[in-house]
C-alpha cells in the first residue's frame, strides 16, 4: 500500500471525521487519496486558520483536532496555530508535507526545517523518513497528543514517503518506555491535602484549563459543594465550574473580579486544580495569596513549584484526583467556614462586575450581556484577544465546560474566528459565537470564504471601537494617552461580508442592539455583525502589570 493511502487508513483507524487544511505540492499524493474517503475535508483559506480550526474543534468536542499543510510556507503558516494549542494544552495532530528525502537539507523549493522550527511549540514531532514507520508514527502522534498533558504533535512526511509502498499494519497497542504519565494521585498526598482542607478557615479553589481538559467539571462541582468552598475559574477554566453557581467567584487575575482577587489574597488555603499559576493570574508573585498554604493538582510535574512554591503537590489527572479526594473525605471533619462564606458573599455584593450603562453609545459589555441573555447562556463562545476577550470572559457567564474557546497562553489575535469554525463543524447544532474586535477579526478575515463555502453558521460579533482597544487602554493608563499605532481605519465590514456572500449587518445605536442580536441569532447561516461601540471604553477592574492582584484599578467603587 502507498504511504499516502496508509496515511488515510491510519486516520480512519483513529476515527478522524474531519480535517482542516490547505493542499500543496508536497501533499498531493495524500490529497489524492483524501478525495475518496469519508473524512470530511474543510479547506481554510490560510494554514494558520486550519490549525486554529483543528484547535477549536478539539476544545469544543474533546476529540483530537487534525490539520494538514504542504511543506515550507504551508508548514510555517501553521506554526502560530500550533504554538497557540501548545500553550493551552490542546490535542491536535498537524501533518505537513516535506520535500523528497533526497532533497532534505538542500534548500529545495518550498523546503523548511519544520521539525526544527516546531520543536519548542509541540509536545513532540516526527520526520518520517521510511514508509514502514508511517503507521506506527501516526499511532504514536495521536496517542501523545491526547494523553498526559495534551498538546500538539506534528508529523512531517516527505512526498516520496507518501509514494513508497509497504504493507499496512496499524499497531494495536502502544508502549513508550520514556513516556508514562501519572494518572492517579499519590494516596499519601491525598491524605495530606485533606488534612490541610480540614484545618482551613478560609479555603478557596482556583480551577484552570486542566479541569476542562480532563473532563472533571462534575467532580469539581461535587467536591466544591461537599466542602462548601468558593471557586474562582481562570480564563482557561471558564466553564469548569458554573459561573452562575452560588460558590462561583468568576475569574481571578489581571481583569478578574474584585471578589475573586480579594478572596485569594485573604485565603488561608488555596487549592489549585489544573491551573499553572500564569502571571496573568498571579500578578506580583510575592503578594499572591500571602497567607495561604497551597495544594496544587496538576498532571504536569513541571507546572508544580514553577512560579509558586507549593505545600502539597499532587501529580496526576485532575478528574481522577478529585474523585480520590471526594472518596476520602471524612464528613465529620469538614470544617465550618460560615464566617468565610459570609465574607465572600459580602465581597461579591460590595464589588460586583459592572460598567456604566449608556443609551447614547453602545457599551461593548451590553452587547455581550445581550448575547448571553438571548442565547440563554448556552452558546459556544470563541473570542479573539484583547478587550473583546476580557468582556466576553466577564459578561458571558459560562456554565458548561468546552463552551469557552480563547487563546489564553499565547494570546493569539485571529484565533477566534477559525476556532469558532472548528467548533461549529464539531457541534453543528450549537450556537457558536466569535466575540471579536475590529483589529483581531482582520487577522483571519479570509475565513469568510470558508464559512461561505461550507455554510458554517458562525456568528461573528465585532465589538468595533476603531482601535486596538487593549493596547490603547494601556496607552491611556500608562503612556499618557499617546495612541501610537493603535487607531484603526477599518474597511466596510458589511461590504466585505457581502463580497464573500455572507450576511452582514451594522449596529450604531444602543436602542437597536436587542433587535440586532435577535436577527443575528435567527439567521441560519454565518453572520458578521459590526457593532460600533464606545471607542474609549476600558476593561475594568484591572491589575497593572507587576502589581499585587488586590491592587486593582476600576471596579472598587
Amino acid at each position: 500500500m502507498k504511504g499516502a493511502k496508509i496515511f488515510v487508513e491510519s486516520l480512519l483507524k483513529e476515527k478522524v471525521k474531519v480535517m482542516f487544511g490547505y493542499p500543496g505540492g508536497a501533499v498531493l499524493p495524500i490529497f489524492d487519496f483524501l478525495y475518496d474517503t469519508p473524512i470530511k475535508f474543510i479547506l481554510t483559506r490560510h494554514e494558520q486558520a486550519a490549525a486554529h480550526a483543528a484547535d477549536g474543534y478539539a476544545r469544543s468536542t474533546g476529540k483530537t483536532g487534525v490539520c494538514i499543510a504542504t511543506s515550507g510556507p504551508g508548514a510555517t503558516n501553521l506554526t502560530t496555530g500550533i504554538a497557540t494549542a501548545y500553550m493551552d494544552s490542546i490535542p491536535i495532530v498537524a501533518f505537513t508535507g516535506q520535500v523528497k528525502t533526497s532533497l532534505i537539507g538542500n534548500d529545495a523549493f518550498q523546503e523548511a526545517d519544520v521539525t526544527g522550527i516546531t520543536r519548542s511549540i509541540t509536545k513532540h514531532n516526527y520526520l518520517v523518513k521510511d514508509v514502514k514507520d508511517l503507521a506506527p508514527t501516526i499511532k504514536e502522534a495521536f496517542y501523545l497528543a491526547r494523553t498526559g498533558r495534551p498538546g500538539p504533535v506534528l508529523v512531517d512526511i516527505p512526498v516520496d514517503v507518501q509514494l513508497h509502498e509497504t504493507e499496512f499494519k496499524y499497531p494495536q497497542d502502544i508502549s513508550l518506555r520514556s513516556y508514562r504519565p501519572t494518572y492517579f494521585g499519590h494516596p499519601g498526598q491525598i491524605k495530606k491535602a485533606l488534612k490541610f482542607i480540614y484545618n482551613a478557615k478560609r479555603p478557596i479553589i482556583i480551577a484552570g484549563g486542566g479541569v476542562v481538559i480532563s473532563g472533571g467539571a462534575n467532580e469539581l462541582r461535587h467536591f466544591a459543594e461537599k466542602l462548601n468552598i468558593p471557586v474562582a475559574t481562570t480564563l482557561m477554566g471558564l466553564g469548569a465550574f458554573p459561573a452562575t453557581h452560588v460558590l462561583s467567584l468568576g475569574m481571578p487575575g489581571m481583569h478578574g473580579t474584585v471578589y475573586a482577587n480579594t478572596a485569594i489574597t485573604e485565603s488561608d488555603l488555596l487549592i489549585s486544580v489544573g491551573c499553572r499559576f500564569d502571571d496573568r493570574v498571579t500578578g506580583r508573585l510575592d503578594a499572591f495569596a500571602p497567607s495561604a498554604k497551597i495544594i496544587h493538582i496538576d498532571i504536569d510535574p513541571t507546572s508544580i513549584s514553577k512560579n509558586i512554591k507549593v505545600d502539597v503537590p499532587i501529580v496526576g489527572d485532575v478528574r481522577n484526583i478529585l474523585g480520590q479526594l471526594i472518596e476520602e473525605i471524612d464528613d465529620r471533619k469538614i470544617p465550618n467556614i460560615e464566617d468565610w462564606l459570609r465574607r465572600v458573599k459580602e465581597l461579591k455584593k460590595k464589588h460586583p462586575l459592572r460598567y456604566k450603562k449608556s443609551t447614547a453609545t453602545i457599551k461593548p459589555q451590553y452587547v455581550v450581556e445581550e448575547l448571553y441573555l438571548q442565547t440563554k447562556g448556552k452558546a459556544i463562545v470563541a473570542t479573539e484577544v484583547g478587550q473583546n476577550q476580557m468582556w466576553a470572559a466577564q459578561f458571558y457567564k459560562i456554565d458548561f465546560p468546552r463552551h469557552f474557546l480563547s487563546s489564553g497562553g499565547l494570546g493569539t489575535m485571529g484565533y477566534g474566528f477559525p476556532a469558532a469554525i472548528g467548533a461549529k463543524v464539531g457541534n453543528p447544532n450549537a450556537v457558536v459565537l466569535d466575540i471579536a474586535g475590529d483589529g483581531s477579526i482582520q487577522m483571519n478575515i479570509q475565513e469568510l470564504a470558508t464559512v461561505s463555502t461550507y455554510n458554517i453558521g458562525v456568528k461573528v460579533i465585532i465589538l468595533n471601537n476603531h482601535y486596538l482597544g487593549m493596547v490603547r487602554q494601556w496607552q491611556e493608563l500608562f503612556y499618557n494617552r499617546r495612541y501610537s499605532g493603535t487607531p484603526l481605519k477599518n474597511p466596510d465590514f458589511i461590504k466585505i461580508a457581502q463580497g464573500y456572500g455572507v450576511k452582514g449587518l451594522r449596529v450604531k445605536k444602543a436602542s437597536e442592539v436587542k433587535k440586532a442580536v435577535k436577527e443575528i441569532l435567527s439567521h441560519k447561516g454565518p453572520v458578521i455583525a459590526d457593532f460600533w461601540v464606545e471607542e474609549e471604553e476600558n476593561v475594568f477592574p484591572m491589575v497593572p502589570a507587576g502589581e499585587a492582584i488586590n491592587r486593582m484599578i476600576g471596579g472598587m467603587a
Partner: protein
Amino acid sequence: MRHTIQALVENKFGVLARIASLFSARGYNIDSLAVGETQDPTISCMTIVVNAQDERVLEQIKKQLHKLIDVITVVDFTRKDYIDRELLLVKISNKKATKSIVDKLVKTYSVKVAHKTKDYTILEVCTQHSDLEHILKEVKKVGIKELVRTGKIAIAK
C-alpha cells in the same frame, strides 16, 4: 552550584537537538555535555553538567528534561556517590622546565605522554574533574599551545 545530571535517552536523530533547544529556550546554561551509546544500542547516555543558581531552577531543569518524550530517565548525581572522568589533550612547548613538570604529573596523576616531538609534547589526561585544575595550573607554567577536552562522564558507584 554545579550539578552533574545523567539522562538516558532514545538513541534517535534529533534527540540532542531537543535537549539543546530545551536549555536554550529556557535560558539555562550547559557547562559540559557528553553523549555516547550505552550497552543497549537503542539507548544513549547524556551526562550534562549545569550551573544552577538555585534549587528551583535545578528542579525545573530535571523535570523539563524528563518531560521530553525521548528522555527515559534523569538522575542527578550531585548528592550521590559517583565516579567521574574527563579526557583532556594538551600540547605544551618543550622548554627547560617541561620535562620535570611532565615527570611530576605522570607520577602523581593519570597523565600520559601521548606524543612527543623536538618542539612540543602532547599530554593525555584522563581524570576526575577536581584534579584537572591542579594539572592545568602546572602545565600553564610552561605555556599551553593548544588544549582540547571532552565533557564529563559519570557513573554511579
